[in-house]
C-alpha cells in the first residue's frame, strides 16, 4: 500500500478520535447545561458549574482540534461541510459563545446572575442540538457534483436531522448526569441519579429510532451494516451497546460506586460512535466524497501527523494531570480554596 492510500485512512481515525474526545468531554459539560433546569436553586447550579469550571476550556479545545485537523487533512471536506451547513454551524458557535462566557460572567454578575445561568442552560441545549443536526445532515448525505455542493441554504432541515438533534441533547444530558453522580454528593447527586434512568430509556429509544431510519435514507450511509453477511460480523456492536445500557440502568441507583454510571455512559457513547464511524467509512462526506478524494497532499498529511504523534501523548498526559488535580467531590458550600 502506498503512502497516499494509507495516510487518509490514518487521518480518518485521527479525526474520528478527536471528534470522539470532544463528544465525550464537552458532551458532559454541555450535559450540565442541559440539566441546569433541574437544579433546585442558584447554589445548586453554582455547584454543577463548579464541577466543570477548571476543565471545560480544555474539553472544548477538542472541537477546535477536530476543525483544524479536518482543515489540514481534508481541506475539501472542511470547505464543503462548513459552507453547506452555514446556519447550523453559526447556531452552534453562537450557543458555544454564550455557554463559555457564562462560566466567567455568572460569578461576576450581581443583577444579571440569572441571565447568565439562563445563557449557560440555553447555550448548552442549542449547541448540543446544532451538533446533532450537523451529524444528521452529514449522515443523510450531501449531494455533490464535480466537488461542488448542490444543495441550498436550508437543505440540512429535515425530519431526520431534527431527530438526531434532539437525540444528541438527551445523550449529552445522560453524560452530564453521570458526571454529576461522580463529582457531587447529597441533594444534587440525588437529582442526577433521579434523571439517569429516564434518560437511559429515552436515549436507547432514540438510538433505536435513528438506527431504524438509516436503511431508508438515500445516502445509504449504513448500507455496510446490511450488506451480505456483514451484519453478523458487526452485530457485537449493537449487542454490546444494549448490554451497556442495561448495566447503566442498574448502576444508576447503586449507592457507593459513584464512578460507575459515568464510565458506563462513556462506553455507551464510544460504542454508538464506533457504529457511526463504521457506517460512514470510507466517505468523509457521504454519499460520494471519499477520504481519498478529499485528502490534502501527502506532504501536508505527513507533516501534521508527525506533530500529532509527538504532541498528542503529551497533551493527554497533562490533561489527565489537570483532571487529577481536581479529582474528588466538589462540595456544595465551598470552592477549591
Amino acid at each position, binding site marked *: 500500500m502506498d503512502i497516499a492510500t494509507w495516510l487518509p485512512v490514518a487521518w480518518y481515525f485521527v479525526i474520528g478520535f478527536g471528534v470522539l474526545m470532544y463528544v465525550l468531554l464537552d458532551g458532559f459539560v454541555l450535559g450540565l447545561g442541559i440539566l441546569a433546569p433541574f437544579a433546585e436553586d442558584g447554589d445548586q447550579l*453554582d455547584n454543577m458549574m463548579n464541577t466543570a*469550571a477548571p476543565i471545560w476550556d*480544555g474539553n472544548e479545545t477538542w472541537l477546535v482540534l477536530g476543525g483544524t485537523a479536518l482543515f*489540514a487533512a481534508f481541506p475539501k471536506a472542511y470547505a464543503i461541510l462548513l*459552507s453547506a451547513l452555514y446556519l447550523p454551524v453559526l447556531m452552534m458557535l453562537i450557543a458555544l459563545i454564550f455557554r*463559555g462566557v457564562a462560566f466567567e460572567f455568572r460569578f461576576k454578575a450581581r443583577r444579571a446572575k440569572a441571565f447568565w445561568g439562563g445563557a449557560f442552560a440555553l447555550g448548552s441545549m442549542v449547541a448540543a442540538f446544532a451538533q446533532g443536526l450537523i451529524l444528521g445532515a452529514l449522515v443523510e448525505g450531501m449531494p455533490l457534483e464535480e466537488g461542488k455542493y448542490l444543495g441550498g441554504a436550508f437543505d440540512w432541515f429535515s425530519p431526520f436531522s431534527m431527530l438526531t438533534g434532539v437525540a444528541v441533547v438527551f445523550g449529552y444530558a445522560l453524560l452530564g448526569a453521570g458526571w454529576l453522580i461522580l463529582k457531587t454528593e447529597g441533594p444534587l447527586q440525588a437529582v442526577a441519579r433521579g434523571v439517569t434512568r429516564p434518560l437511559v430509556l429515552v436515549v436507547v429509544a432514540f438510538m433505536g429510532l435513528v438506527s431504524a431510519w438509516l436503511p431508508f435514507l438515500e445516502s445509504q450511509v449504513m448500507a455496510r451494516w446490511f450488506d451480505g453477511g456483514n451484519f453478523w460480523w458487526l452485530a457485537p456492536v449493537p449487542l454490546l451497546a444494549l448490554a451497556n445500557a442495561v448495566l447503566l440502568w442498574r448502576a444508576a441507583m447503586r449507592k457507593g460506586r459513584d464512578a460507575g454510571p459515568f464510565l458506563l455512559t462513556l462506553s455507551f457513547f464510544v460504542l454508538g460512535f464506533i457504529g457511526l464511524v463504521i457506517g460512514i467509512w470510507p466517505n468523509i462526506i457521504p454519499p460520494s466524497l471519499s477520504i481519498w478524494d478529499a485528502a490534502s497532499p501527502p506532504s501536508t498529511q505527513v507533516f501534521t501527523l508527525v506533530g500529532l504523534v509527538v504532541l498528542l501523548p503529551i497533551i493527554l498526559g*497533562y490533561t489527565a494531570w489537570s483532571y487529577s488535580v*481536581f479529582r474528588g467531590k466538589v462540595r456544595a458550600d465551598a*470552592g477549591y480554596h
Partner: protein
Amino acid sequence: MDALLLSRIQFGFLITFHILFPAFTIGLAHWLAFLEWRWLRTRDGKWRDLYFFWLRIFAISFGMGVVSGIVMSFQFGTNWAVLSERAGAILGPLLSYEVLTAFFLEASFLGVMLFGWNRVSPKLHFFSTCMVALGTLFSTFWILSANSWMQTPQGHELIDGMFHPVDWLAVIFNPSFPYRLAHMVLAAFITTCFVIGGVGAWYLRRGVHVEEGRRMLKLAVAFAAIALPLQVLVGDLHGLNVGEHQPVKLAAMEAHWEAGEPGAGVPLVLFALPDAANETNRYELAIPRLGSLILTHSWDGEIEPLTAVPASDRPPVAPVFWAFRIMVGLGMAMLLLAMLSTWAWWRGWLFESRWLLDGWRLLSPAGFVALVAGWYVVEIGRQPWVVYGLLRTSEAVSPNITAAAVMSSLAIYATAYAVIFGAGIRYLLGLVRKGPLPYEESPDTEGGDRTPARPLSVGDREDAHTEGR
C-alpha cells in the same frame, strides 16, 4: 451588498474583536508570571495581591479570547471555502500546530492557574502560570506564520490552483514572518504594559492602592522605556521588508501615487485625502525627501508608486494610509510618554506629576487602538489579494452561501458580541475599580457566607465580604 462584501465585513468585524483579547492576554500572562515569581522570591504579600487582582482580569479576558477564537477557526470554512480548499494544505497544518502546541497547553494549565492555588504546591502553580504564558507565545508563533505566509507566500507549488507544500521550513519561516512576529509580540506586550501603567496611575491619582499603584507604574515605565524604542526599530525593519515584498502596500501606506523627478526622492506625506479616482492626493502636506530617508534609509531612494500597477491590483488607499498614521502617531505618543516618565522617575517626581499620571491614564487604551490600526494596514493593505499575488479575495469566498445567509450571520454575531463584550468590559472595569484586595487565608470558615463557591476568585468571595460590611 453581495456575499463577498458581507463576508469581508464579517471577517473584519470578528477578527477586530477577537484580536483585542489575545493581544492583551499575551502580555498579561507574562506579567502574571513575573508577579508570581516576585511573590515566591520575596514572600511580600503585595505581590500576591497584585497577582490575584490581575488573574481575575486575565480570566475574563482569556475567556472572551477563547470564545471569539473558536468562531475564527470555523470562519475559513464557512465563508472562505475556496481559500480553504486551495490553501488548506498549507494553512490547515499551521493552525493544527497552534492547537496542538498552544491551545491545549493554555487551557489545561489555565484551570490549575485559576483554581489550583490550594491544590498544588506553590512551585507547581508557578509552573502552570509559566506554561500558560508559553502557550500564548506558541499560539502567536503559528498564527502569525499562517498570516505571514498569506502575505509573502513561498515554499509551495501551485497544481491546478491548489497550493501544495514543498518545503515546510520555507513555508513557516517565510520572508515577512520574523519581522511580523517580533512586531506583534512587542505590540502585545506594550498594549498590556500601558493598561498596567494606566491602572497604576489612576490609583495614584485617586490616592487609593498607593503602594500597588506605584509598583505597577514603575514597572510599566521601565518596560515601556525599553520596549518602545525597540518597537520603533522593529517597525522600521518591518517597513523595509514590506517595501521589498509588498511594494504596492507600502505605496498605499504612504499614499505615493506617482514617481517623482529622478533624484528627488520620496516625500513624507503628513496629511492628505487620498483620491483613488484621480490617482492623487488632495490637501497634501508633505516634507520632501523624508519619505526616502525613512523608507529606504537614503536621501534619494525611490519606492514603487501605486500607478506602477493597474488599479485592479491596488488596495483601498485611504484606510491603509490613515490606519498607518494612527498607529505611528500613537506609537510616538507612547514613546514620548515613556521617555518623559523615565526622566521624571530619575528626577524623583514621577508619582507627583498630575499631568504625567493623566498621560498614562489617557494612553492606557492606546496600545489596543494602535494594534488594531496596524492590523488594518496589514490586512487591507494586502487587498485585493487573500494570498498575495496568487489568489484574489473575490475568488476565495464560498460559492454556495447567499447574501441573506451572511447578512443574518453578521447581524447575529454583531448582536451577540455587543451583549458579550459589553458585559465583559463592564465586569473588567468593575474589577479595576475595586482594585487589588488583601488576600485572606482559609476564607471558608468566615461568617459562613454562602457566596459562589468559586475559587476563581479570591475576588468573588471578597466581593461578598465587602458587601456585607
